């Protein structure tokens, strides 16, 4: 009688990583992982759906009683899926990521040169936020106005990244949007202070 030493225990789940490694390949970029084209325009409902599908397969809750090594891999894969999802979901992070994939260095740290008109505009936004920093309703209105403005700029960015394909201009637009993001966060912080 042959010794059947390495028999799998009965009822053991099928080896998980033959399955998961097919869907989560660490060499894929975020777009490939989510099965969407590398472009700025994105189907957010599809993104959400794919996110749930991926997490259903890799989330640590699926491996709570698995051996340590499998649990660790599951955590890494779920972390990777979260990172990709957050990057693709945020238009700003998505734009930065596309530029990065195209090998464009947007020089966010060093290139702070902005058109004078844009900087004037920024200053005026900041003054208005300061002036209304005690009035939550006014702050919310400012935030809505700010988002209208940045919304238009995002449309421009969409053209630059997907249609005209002008990476240089897209970098500049992305830098601009970072200013808007910062203002938006400042309003949030002010509102939070008022609520404390």
């Amino acid at each position, binding site marked *: 009688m042959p010794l059947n030493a390495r028999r799998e225990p009965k009822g053991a789940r099928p080896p998980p990583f033959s399955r998961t490694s097919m869907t989560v390949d660490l060499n894929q970029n975020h777009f490939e992982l989510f099965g969407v084209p590398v472009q700025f325009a994105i189907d957010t409902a599809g993104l959400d759906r794919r996110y749930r599908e991926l997490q259903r397969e890799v989330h640590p*809750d699926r491996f709570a009683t698995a051996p340590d*090594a499998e649990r660790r891999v599951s955590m890494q894969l779920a972390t990777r899926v979260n990172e990709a999802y957050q990057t693709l979901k945020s238009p700003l992070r998505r734009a930065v990521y596309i530029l990065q994939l195209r090998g464009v260095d947007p020089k966010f740290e060093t290139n702070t040169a902005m058109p004078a008109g844009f900087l004037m505009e920024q200053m005026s936004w900041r003054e208005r936020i300061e002036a209304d920093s005690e009035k939550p309703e006014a702050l919310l209105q400012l935030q809505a106005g700010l988002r209208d403005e940045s919304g238009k700029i995002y449309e421009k960015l969409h053209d630059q990244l997907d249609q005209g394909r002008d990476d240089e201009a897209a970098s500049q637009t992305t830098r601009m949007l970072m200013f808007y993001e910062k203002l938006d966060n400042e309003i949030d912080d002010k509102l939070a202070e008022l609520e404390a």
Partner: protein
Amino acid sequence: MALLQISEPGQSPAPHEHRRAVGIDLGTTNSLVATVRNGIAVVLNDHDGYGLLPSVVRYLRDGRTVTGREAEADQARDPKNTIVSVKRFMGRGLKDVVHVENSPYDFLDTPGMVQIRTVLGVKSPVEVSAEILKVLRARAEEALGGELMGTVITVPAYFDDAQRQATKDAGKLAGLNVLRLLNEPTAAAIAYGLDNAAEGIYAVYDLGGGTFDISILKLSKGVFEVMATNGDAALGGDDFDQRLFCWVVERAKLAPLSAEDTRLLLTKSRAAKEFLTANAEARISAILISGETVDVAVTQKEFQDMTRQLVAKTLGPSRKALRDAGLQWSEVKGVVMVGGATRMPHVQQMVAELFGQTPLTNLDPDKVVALGAATQANVLAGNRASGDDWLLLDVIPLSLGVETMGGLAERVIPRNSTIPVARAQEFTTYKNGQTAMSIHVVQGERELVADCRSLARFELRGFPPMVAGAARIRVTFQVDADGLLSVAAREATTGVEAAIAVKPSYGLTDEQITQMLRDSFDHAREDVHLRALKEQQVEGGRMIEATEAALREDADLLSAQELAAVRAELEALGKTLSCTDHRTIKSAIERVNRATETFAGRRMDRSVKRALTGRKVESL
């Protein structure tokens, strides 16, 4: 006629094996244990039919430890040794504990976490909590008829890393296999959502004995996605008791009270608070040790007025959570109320005003968290039924960061990031020739490190001197599915590394932590375990192969009985190879060694004989 079930060849299903799993709500005031029976989550009661176990532990001079109802009854008689609301001390330093002045305990201001001196010696909050967990574990094991395979313990969503780690440690100390730490509002959302097949945006407002949480969740097609959470880890029903207690002391013009009288009046205040939920007036009557009588009446209106500010403290976090989720009030489909303190009418009223809708109170606010935890435990343990294909996506409540120059906190992982999450950030040196860097990990939303909670400090040493700004130190934060953090640092140009699982510094000095770090400098602890496991697996596999080969050649040297014994041990060893504990494999290897001792001896004899014969042949 019953149909016979026939499975596909090679795919015979294992007989359904239900794994014993429970959810535990380790509460400030009361704790519960629940499990899933026949697909339904149920709270397990004690012999007297009580589900709630008062979270009270009394240490007695004779060496006994009493937990629950009996301890609660003794609290006024022996306040110094009867620990109530220990959850408020979990992962907390003395300076973080509110109402220290009204606490009767003999606190020790140990670094990291306070400790309490009792007649049975110094106890840490982790040990006290473990006593509560042990009672629930015993209750569950008796009810389920055997050892528990796994447990989910709930924590307030707003608990920081130190408080979470302390809770997990308490579970381990109580002999539980903690499958997951689950946020209380999320547990409640599971229980509510699955019961009501809810879809859409829900808020869970959880005001417990000592903590307040607000979570905003999106329930969609079996996915529970926490969008944002906020709260106050030191606000709960206890504070309402304290407020009423102070009012009574003032009203009755009482002199400073002894520990016993303080506990007595606090207990009376709590009873009055509960009575006022459904009644217009309550009396607080007591006879103090001095013989002095206290007899004060309090109306519902008076009570509500004196505690209105406490309720108002929950509004800010609620607004913040909603804004972090990027939502408007009108988008919230329902507000689920959790925690005994939400029974107070003025709490319900304020929540109704805030959200513009009547909150959902159709579930038992004391039990819903434990029921949700049991449901999660059941699924994690592998008892997943066909309807259990749901998924939980939770977040970290507080931002994580490191200290930079000037005592500022640099955010690395923002609050409300979905876990598990990892983020790396690069830092550099600020002095020429600097060869070490001290990394201070903090948690919180404030700009100044001094206002955030310090989680850990460690040092990265031994990179060569460079000009200021030339070193590139990459600090990686990883938060796992329990919301627990580990940090690794690496200098990029030289590859010098350091890693640590962030453990709260209770009872440990900075030097000891540094030492622990030094020990884990070369290899993370986990890696050491993993390596030992690999080694034993390889060794075990080799052992099986070698023994099988030997049996093929020389099995005739053994009697049928001896052969069976060897084969049994080999089979046992084979089974251990897939386990995760290297010591189990090692001991199985040793047993095979022992079982084959005689066989090895005889084989040796035979080979010697063979060799001798061979030589004879050769020499012929």
